[in-house]
């Protein structure tokens, strides 16, 4: 059923009794051409684009829990394409373009909201780094503006310009950046994929990968064995666990990242803002909650929850940036398990096992990548060659010394 004002009105008259399920809940078939492990944003987007762009149909997405229970359902919803390195920026810009047409494309309002992403800087060195980044964006036609302190103050007069420890010197603004209603992205892709014949299967955990003669032939799951010709991993924070089923060791560690939401407020902050002198970023949801976060807790973790020191660390920075936020209350905190790669950039590649594909290493930035990740991964799976904007996301880049290290932190995942 296509969603529209008319379908909504029509259903209102019948007491909303006639809505159909947004997706079927099928039992797994014995065999698929392609199985995607992980019903998060990337897995669902991959299925969607495989069906839509490549006309493939016999596909299943296997999700161990409920749909969108992973990081797609717990991120702070920021989208932007303000990356530094040539291996990254064109990919994220493709993603931005896909976001811009996404809702009409999959007929689901995911509330793509280009309210602007502003990164504050507090030192000359930071400003120089932003100038480098901003020009890297502009050189490729991506929008970027370098603001001085005055311009930031015009936008956000209630930030700390009076008594700051680290004065705000300006910021890098990408107006096309913004936020998207995270859950709706999973739902929209799931519905879109479902309509194109994909089986979206919840409560189906992949527990083993069957390999014969160096080639993937199927998976063992909590709902029995399923055969497949190609197997595409999309397990985000659980990538290492799933890859180990095929005997692969990844350049990835799993870390917990916390996020927070405040009580609902009348409009308080218009765009997305990141503090440059501490770990804090914030935006306001369409419901009115301030959605904010900061840094990883710092230790390897598969528990989706963090501890108080990081809460304090993040909130201290929040109050340093916006003194008025002090009397606002934090409503809820939660955590997600991040697939932190060794250089902070993702991997979309084939593996040494024939028919086994890998999509991982998104760190805490993979939400914005969802459409492009699905798009490029689908391309790789369908054609066995990388999409042209995703050629740098190779697994052998570490071996070859071609890291994509935006932050220059080196092989220390919790510093990316």
């Amino acid at each position, binding site marked *: 059923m296509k969603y529209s004002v008319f379908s909504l009105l029509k259903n209102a008259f019948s007491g909303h009794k006639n809505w159909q399920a947004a997706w079927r809940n099928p039992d797994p078939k014995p065999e698929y051409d392609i199985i995607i492990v992980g019903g998060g944003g990337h897995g669902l987007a991959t299925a969607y684009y495989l069906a839509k762009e490549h006309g493939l149909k016999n596909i299943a997405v296997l999700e161990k829990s409920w749909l969108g229970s992973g990081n797609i359902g717990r991120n702070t919803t920021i989208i932007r394409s303000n990356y530094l390195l040539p291996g990254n920026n064109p990919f994220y810009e493709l993603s931005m373009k896909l976001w811009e047409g996404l809702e009409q494309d999959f007929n689901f309002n995911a509330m793509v909201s280009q309210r602007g992403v502003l990164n504050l800087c507090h030192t000359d060195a930071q400003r120089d780094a932003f100038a480098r980044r901003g020009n890297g964006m502009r050189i490729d036609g991506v929008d970027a503006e370098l603001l001085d302190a005055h311009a930031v103050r015009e936008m956000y007069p209630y930030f700390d310009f009076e008594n700051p420890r680290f004065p705000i010197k300006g910021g890098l603004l990408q107006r096309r950046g913004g936020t998207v209603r995270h859950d709706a992205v999973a739902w929209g892709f799931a519905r879109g994929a479902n309509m194109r014949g994909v089986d979206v299967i919840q409560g189906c955990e992949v527990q083993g990968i069957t390999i014969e003669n160096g080639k993937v032939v199927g998976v063992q799951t909590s709902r029995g064995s399923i055969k497949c010709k190609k197997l595409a991993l999309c397990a985000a924070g659980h990538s*290492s666990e799933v890859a180990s089923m095929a005997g692969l060791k990844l350049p990835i560690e799993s870390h917990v990242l916390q996020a927070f939401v405040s009580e609902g407020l009348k409009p308080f902050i218009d765009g997305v803002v990141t503090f440059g002198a501490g770990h804090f970023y914030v935006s306001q949801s369409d419901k009115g909650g301030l959605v904010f976060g900061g840094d990883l807790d*710092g*230790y390897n*973790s598969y*528990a989706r929850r963090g501890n108080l020191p990081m809460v304090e660390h993040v909130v201290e920075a929040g109050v340093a940036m916006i003194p008025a936020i002090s009397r606002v209350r934090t409503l809820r905190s939660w955590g997600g398990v991040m697939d932190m790669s060794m250089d902070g950039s993702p991997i979309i590649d084939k593996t040494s096992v024939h028919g086994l594909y890998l999509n991982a290493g998104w760190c805490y930035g993979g939400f914005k990548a969802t459409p492009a990740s699905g798009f490029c991964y689908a391309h790789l799976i369908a054609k066995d060659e990388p999409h042209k904007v995703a050629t740098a996301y190779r697994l052998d880049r570490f071996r070859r010394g071609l890291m994509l290290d935006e932050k220059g932190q080196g092989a220390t*995942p*919790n510093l990316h």
Partner: protein
Amino acid sequence: MLIPCPHCGTRPVEEFTFLGDATVIRPTSLEPSSMDDWMDYVYLRDNPRGNYAEYVQHSGGCRAWLVVTRNTGTHEVHSAVAAKAMKAKP
């Protein structure tokens, strides 16, 4: 999370800095043929869910590097031993 520093006693997690897997061993060979070992050492991680031995520094305390055994699924901390002492053992 509390970590029982062998030198300082039990202290909360904010006094510690985590570096990661303590089971990896730095290769000694400088031959190009050892590159895979180096690659493994610098970049590849088992990243298990469950018990995990990791390098942790008591950076906000005695500054000793420790090998902490902890469950990455539950955050339960089992032990903390000075890295120095750990290495001294054969």
